[in-house]
């Protein structure tokens, strides 16, 4: 029986994975700051496009970090550093706060929901997350967030309603103030716009730590499906709060000839957000790709509309949505 004990030391030796594995990285303020800077240095996709010298940024902010500083003090150093990249896809998540770069703050809102509700949406219906009605023989859909999932069947209901309406002239898709979400919801709409396989954009992804290490450009296509389509012309309404998946939706929608984008340039957000977690539990997400429209236009800083129309303050005071009125008139021409 004693010989059985020979097994025991063998077992313990073999079970010591800690001997051959790394220890948890340090989580002091200096280590976290350095790892944050390095994570962006090796992963962020827009340094060259935005002309940001990330090494210089380090020399500006690093002296403000010292051992023993509080989490709040470290956060107050890190966030201004991240904001030098002017990117709404960059968020530092610390548990007590999540940073947010306000990409639309310097632009007019071009959206007034109260006017819509009072003067345009009376009698509206809601199918899934889609608010819809018919205004002067023009179908109208308001979609607040691409994070809100709808099914093909729900979209069928909305589009069938428009198709069944006598004398329908077209459809307005209002995505103003839509800050993005899941691109899969955008694809669901785009497939109804497609009549043939259509190139919507090209994307290159970060593929290594160098600022210029990317994959080859990868083309993305939308194929039509055989479900209910959009009747007539389609106008898409945008403003500066249209961001991320909404930005991709607008860039894609412009690939279809029957679509006219009306309003303001979108807010941008052309990178696929990726993330990293630090040993103290903080996490950061940031853009890890670059997307171009088929003509080579970089969509990071927004997609311009076909027709730039602003919400006129006088109209607004009189309860009129200038952008929606323009779209309805455009479709009815």
């Amino acid at each position, binding site marked *: *029986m004693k*010989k*059985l004990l020979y*097994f025991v030391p*063998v*077992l313990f030796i*073999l*079970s010591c*994975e800690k001997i*051959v*594995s*790394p220890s*948890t*990285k340090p*989580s002091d303020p200096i280590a976290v700051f350095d*790892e944050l800077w390095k994570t962006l240095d090796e*992963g962020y996709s827009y340094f060259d496009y935005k002309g940001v010298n990330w090494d210089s940024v380090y020399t500006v902010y690093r002296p403000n970090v010292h051992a023993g500083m509080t989490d709040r003090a470290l956060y107050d150093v890190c966030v201004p550093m991240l904001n030098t990249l002017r990117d709404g896809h960059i968020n530092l*998540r*610390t*548990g*007590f706060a999540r940073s947010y770069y306000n990409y639309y703050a310097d632009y007019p809102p071009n959206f007034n929901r109260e006017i819509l509700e009072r003067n345009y949406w009376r009698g509206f219906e809601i199918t899934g997350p889609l608010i819809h009605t018919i205004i002067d023989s023009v179908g109208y859909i308001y979609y607040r967030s691409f994070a809100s999932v709808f099914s093909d069947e729900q979209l069928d209901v909305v589009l069938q309603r428009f198709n069944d309406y006598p004398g329908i002239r077209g459809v307005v898709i209002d995505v103003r103030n839509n800050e993005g979400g899941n*691109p*899969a919801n955008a*694809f669901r709409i*785009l*497939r109804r716009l497609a009549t043939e396989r259509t190139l*919507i*954009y090209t*994307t290159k*992804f*970060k*593929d*290594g730590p160098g600022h210029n290490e990317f994959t080859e450009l*990868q083309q*993305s*296509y*939308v*194929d039509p499906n055989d479900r209910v389509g959009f009747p007539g012309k389609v106008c898409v309404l945008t403003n500066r709060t249209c961001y991320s998946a909404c930005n*991709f939706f607008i860039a894609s929608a412009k690939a279809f000839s029957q679509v006219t984008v009306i309003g303001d340039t979108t807010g941008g957000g052309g990178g*696929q*957000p*990726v*993330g*990293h*977690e*630090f*040993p*103290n*539990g*903080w*996490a950061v*997400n940031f853009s*890890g*790709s670059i*997307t171009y429209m088929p003509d080579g236009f970089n969509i990071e800083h927004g997609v311009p509309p076909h027709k730039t129309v602003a919400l006129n303050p006088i109209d607004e005071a009189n309860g009129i949505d200038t952008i929606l009125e323009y779209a309805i008139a455009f479709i009815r021409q």
Partner: protein
Amino acid sequence: MKKHICPLLVIVVLVFSAYSTLWAQDTSASFRQRYFLFGAGITGQSFYDEAISGTWYSNTGMAPLLGHFKIKNGHLSQLLIEPSFLSLRTKESDKLIPMRVSTVRVVTDYHLLYDIKKWSKKYDVKLGGLASLVAEYKEAPQLDNSAIVYDYALSLGVSGRAARNVRVLKHAAELSLQLSMPLIAHMTRPMYLNRIEFLDPENDLLGDIFGNADIVTLNRYFRINSQLALRYHLSTGNDVRLAYHWDFYRMKDINRVFAAEHMVSFIFMFRY
């Protein structure tokens, strides 16, 4: 085509294992023992995955065990499948900073061992091969679109087992120590920044996962697996097996992952 090779390989290995352990018919009157294995274990898992964070995640839970065990003329084969579903966390995890990763892990090991020249009258020593599948799917929602992380390795390697008969509580039993180590593997880990290309309407998740796959050896996939087991013979002809398993692997691709599992298992061995 490349992305289809991996699932095909998995299927081939598993079908071969099932066939060779379950359905290979013995026409001779030779000594043969065949068992179905059903059991469960208390598993403690941990990992350090640079695709997520430079910190250790760990937790414990229960895992079922299914398999087949056969001894014929001194040759031994065993297929053991261990799926587990855990939510791992770090020591720093709290309500404000969740630091949680949900995992689905499936480990399938097939051992085929042969008698070697007797080294000792007391010890029964066998050596042979190992076919193994380690697949772990991790979801770390704090990483936004980098949330999906995975380890996969389909491997071939060597395995050895030493056993001796003992008496426990005046009953016959067998004590064994088994060690296994893959030598070559078909392995994949996430792409740079855990990229999943869902900006593309035609994105194929399986294609993304296996798009980075490669044939590797010990320097990029190192796994060692040990099991100390006490097999207790019941009067019904069935057996029970109490075992301690230790499993460790390290994968190195764009970044590294270190993962370990400690498990205490209790398995019923139904002879047929």
